[in-house]
């Protein structure tokens, strides 16, 4: 096809009158980058615009503009700030996100620390329970019954005692005591009382205590509970509330 034939198609194309296979052929020719035909189409377009501009003018009714103004007012795609404001908004939003993420991280960190603490507490609790179960389940464990003495005859105590693992002590029926006092448990071995720990009672008068095995003690003869100043003493000084002899 000689270029002169394309030049003919350019005129029809500018008029929007190209159809059939001529149209596809000419559009492919334009896509191939023919500057001559592209310029011709533009020039014909200008001439046709000039031709249209010579028609006697007919003004559209104001209702068309009113409808358009209403329509673009509701156009969400365009109803936004110009670029500079857009950037400012984007920066502000980014800053908010950073603050939010920072705050969330701090909160998460705090939450994590609390959970770690809880897990540590639970682990310790499980370890204590396992020790108690081991003590209770061992055939070498002795059970020492402590009876209430003169200040609290109705009180009772039990000591599950294992020579190597130590013991688990519970008491019931002990009277409430002032805050400057404490109950102290004693393991008496070879006639010498060794402190096995201090404890307070709940409002029902009950208490429980895990007891570590005293170092270098082969056999405990007696367990006893006395009332001592808060914090306990190295040697018993107060009244004895419970006492029991090991078998």
């Amino acid at each position, binding site marked *: 096809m000689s270029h002169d034939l394309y030049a003919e198609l350019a005129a029809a194309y500018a008029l929007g009158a190209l159809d059939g296979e001529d149209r596809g052929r000419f559009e492919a020719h334009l896509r191939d980058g023919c500057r001559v035909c592209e310029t011709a189409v533009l020039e014909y377009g200008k001439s046709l615009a000039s031709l249209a501009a010579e028609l006697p003018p007919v003004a559209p009714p104001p209702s*068309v503009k009113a409808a358009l103004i209403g329509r673009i007012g509701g156009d969400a795609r365009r109803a936004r700030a110009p670029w500079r404001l857009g950037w400012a908004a984007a920066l502000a939003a980014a800053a908010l996100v950073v603050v939010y993420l920072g705050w969330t991280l701090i909160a998460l960190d705090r939450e994590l620390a609390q959970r770690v603490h809880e897990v540590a507490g639970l682990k310790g609790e499980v370890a204590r329970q396992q020790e108690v179960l081991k003590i209770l389940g061992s055939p070498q464990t002795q059970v020492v019954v402590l009876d209430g003495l003169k200040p609290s005859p109705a009180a009772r105590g039990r000591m599950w005692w294992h020579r190597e693992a130590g013991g688990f002590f519970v008491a019931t029926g002990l009277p409430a005591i002032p805050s400057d006092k404490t109950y102290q448990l004693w393991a008496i071995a070879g006639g010498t009382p060794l402190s096995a720990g201090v404890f307070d009672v709940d409002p029902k008068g009950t208490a429980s205590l895990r007891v570590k095995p005293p170092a270098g003690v082969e056999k405990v003869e007696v367990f006893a509970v006395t009332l001592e100043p808060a914090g306990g003493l190295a040697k018993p000084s107060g009244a004895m509330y419970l006492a029991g002899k090991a078998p």
Partner: protein
Amino acid sequence: MREASEGVALICRIAAGDREAFSDFYDRYATLAFTLIRRIVGQPADAEEVLQEVFWQAWRDARAYDEGRGSPEAWILNRARSRAIDKLRSIRRKGEIFVAPLIEEIAREAEAPGQNPASLAEDRKVVQTALQLLPERERRIIELAFFEGLTQSEIALRLGEPLGTVKTRMRSGLERLRGHFAVRVATS
């Protein structure tokens, strides 16, 4: 030229979402576009619908405007003409206007008295001032394509001329118009 660059500035502002620029752009070009649309589709209600669609698309597509590819006037008129012809064709498809191959003389006789002889005569007179340099056989072909949206094959059928002849006359007619307007721009 100054008018065109003001139009370009308005399109740039429209591309940035400036509604005031859109309002100014409409005031500047709506009558021009509506005149052409009315000439093509005829019915005022249809023409108003097309005008609204043309300017709505201009609002949406302002960013795609390329100054190198035509003046703002040509840009909006090209859209106006294209949408108006789409409308005309859709009306024809509905059978409201009959465009089967006709004998041209009969078609012209049916058109000439018209429903509104005054405005038709006025249109024809002014259009002739721009098309007067063209021989009748070229002028008619350009009118059928430009104002009535007929394709080259439809024009060949309508006029009973070979397609090759229609193509050749279309080109020579447009070349004559281009020469006319180029001279007018150069002398103004």
